[in-house]
């Protein structure tokens, strides 16, 4: 279902819409998944230069966490730019406050230059779809982690680094809702669902933050 809104599906417009009408969502979703794999495979074969899976995972994770603070990643996936214009674009975003170290920016630049170049196919999978393929729901860390207890002192820094841009200093709210004394802090199910999988304009953090880090942030928020 999630893939229904993706550019992958737009690419298969007529076929998929017909499928949806006649055979319903299940078939459409299945076709989307299949088509997604086909497109991803085609995209990877068409990449300029080689991106190792580990590099791709790092770049996708960074794009998802850092670029999506200001804009959704669909804006990135629709670009088809030569290396020089990608370089200028990434530099501009760094100048404007994108939270990337020099090495991280280089990793992002290498990925977008290889993937979204002028000769790339019109339709490519979304960043979120690629993340889901590379690191299935919950991220690779999930299996190794049992129940975790948050540590508020660690959560403060993690919050400032990952959440503050939208939820404001001191969790007082901003583009995103105020989290200090927010009732969601008392509803573990809703809190974890929202952080791991996103909600509305909020991106999913499951592939970016470990469960321990999320628990730390929760512990800190509870003190606000």
């Amino acid at each position, binding site marked *: *279902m*999630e893939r*229904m*809104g993706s550019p992958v*599906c*737009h690419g298969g*417009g007529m076929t998929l*819409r017909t499928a949806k009408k006649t055979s319903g969502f299940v078939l459409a979703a299945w076709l989307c998944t299949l088509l997604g794999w086909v497109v991803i495979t085609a995209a990877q074969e068409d990449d300029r230069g080689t991106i190792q899976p580990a590099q791709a995972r790092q770049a996708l994770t960074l794009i998802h966490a850092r670029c999506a*603070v*200001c*804009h*959704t990643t*669909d*804006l990135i996936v*629709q*670009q*088809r*730019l*030569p290396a*020089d*214009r990608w370089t200028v*674009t990434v530099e501009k975003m760094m100048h*404007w*406050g994108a939270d990337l170290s020099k090495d991280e920016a280089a990793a992002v630049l290498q990925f977008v230059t290889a993937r979204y170049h*002028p000769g790339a196919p019109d339709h490519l999978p979304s960043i979120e779809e690629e993340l889901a393929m590379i690191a299935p729901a919950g991220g690779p860390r999930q299996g190794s982690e049992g129940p975790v207890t948050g540590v508020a002192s660690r959560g403060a820094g993690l919050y400032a680094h990952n959440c503050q*841009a*939208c939820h404001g200093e001191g969790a007082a709210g*901003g*583009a995103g809702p105020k989290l200090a004394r927010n009732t969601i802090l008392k509803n573990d199910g809703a809190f974890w669902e929202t952080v791991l*999988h*996103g*909600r*509305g*304009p909020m991106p*999913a953090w499951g592939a970016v933050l470990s469960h321990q880090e999320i628990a730390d942030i929760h512990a800190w928020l509870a003190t606000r």
Partner: protein
Amino acid sequence: MTVFRREWLRTVLQGIGIGMVVGPGIPSIASAQASEAGQGTGPLTVRVTRPFDAETPVREFASWLTPNERFFTRSHFGPPPADSVKPDAWRLTVKGLVKEELTLNLKDLQQLEAVTLTAVLQCSGNGRAHHRPKVPGVQWERGAVGNAQWTGVRLRDVLQQAGVKPQGVHVQFQGADRPALATVPLFTRSIPLAKALHPDTLLAYEMNGRPLPLLHGAPLRVITPGWMAESCMKWLTEITVRVDETPGYYMQQAYRIPETAVRLSSGLPGSAMVPVEQMPVKSLIAAPAEGDTVRIGPVTIQGVAWAGEAPVVKVEVSCDDGKTWEQARLLGEGQPYAWRQWQFVWNARTPGPTAILCRATDAQGQEQPATSPWNPGGFLWNGWDRLSVTVAA
């Protein structure tokens, strides 16, 4: 997650025109749009989810006015919180090189003479996706444009109330929208005083007879008829009269084009960069649609055409991929700044695939070119509109 995204889309779509204007009376329309828009088959084709940048499918341009909920939407940071622009909380300040600073609420403004005009609003980047080589930015295709009726007061009347000092030659606009990060420059723009004092330049509080929807700049936006939409500041809160053009990214770097055409693929501007202002002459085919199959016999082709501050005088149509052209019929009365509907009845005789093209000419003799001059920002695309159809026996 899908459910959450739908809910969010619904909120956004209500912001376009339904929620704020009509209230919760017709949620079914909004929710139907929400489920459709996410798939690009509904009233709007979403290019960027946040900030919400979405264009109108060209079939909607079969109607003269573009409805609010089907009007394209674009901003750099998304709308400000709805509470901050509610009429009781919102204020407009007029400052800078003026004799008397003003702070006005909506009622104060509405004491001035109300003016209504119909004008095309178009994003400078409309058609960016057609530029080759490709350029960065939202990859708009054909629908980041619309024609609406705007009601408001003359900016000139407000400026006269404040009294512009002789040194004041540029008028700067600031809206209430803010970036997620304080390190991102604000979207601040200015227009020359002459355009600001033009009697048709408005501070609009109504769109198609309804209060401005949140996504379209509630409660007040600038309308600079004939000029591209980046001058039409939404969520307006500050007017500052200045001695110079506004400094900063969105005036000095973005929304500028080379004064003379640049060599294709050079990657660099070849001349001085000047601000985007007037819209160039342009036309679109609203029907038939891309990929349609039409029957042999008479086929009605219809569309719209507009130009900046000059009226459109001619629209030509080619049904053989540009080999021959015939003149279309202009419908209704021409109105300054509004688009003109046109129609052409094509007698389709030869079965098989073909391309339908259209091009317009304005009163200054400017003709829509086959492709627009390339520029690094991908602005002002006005190449011939083209769609593929198949004639079936």
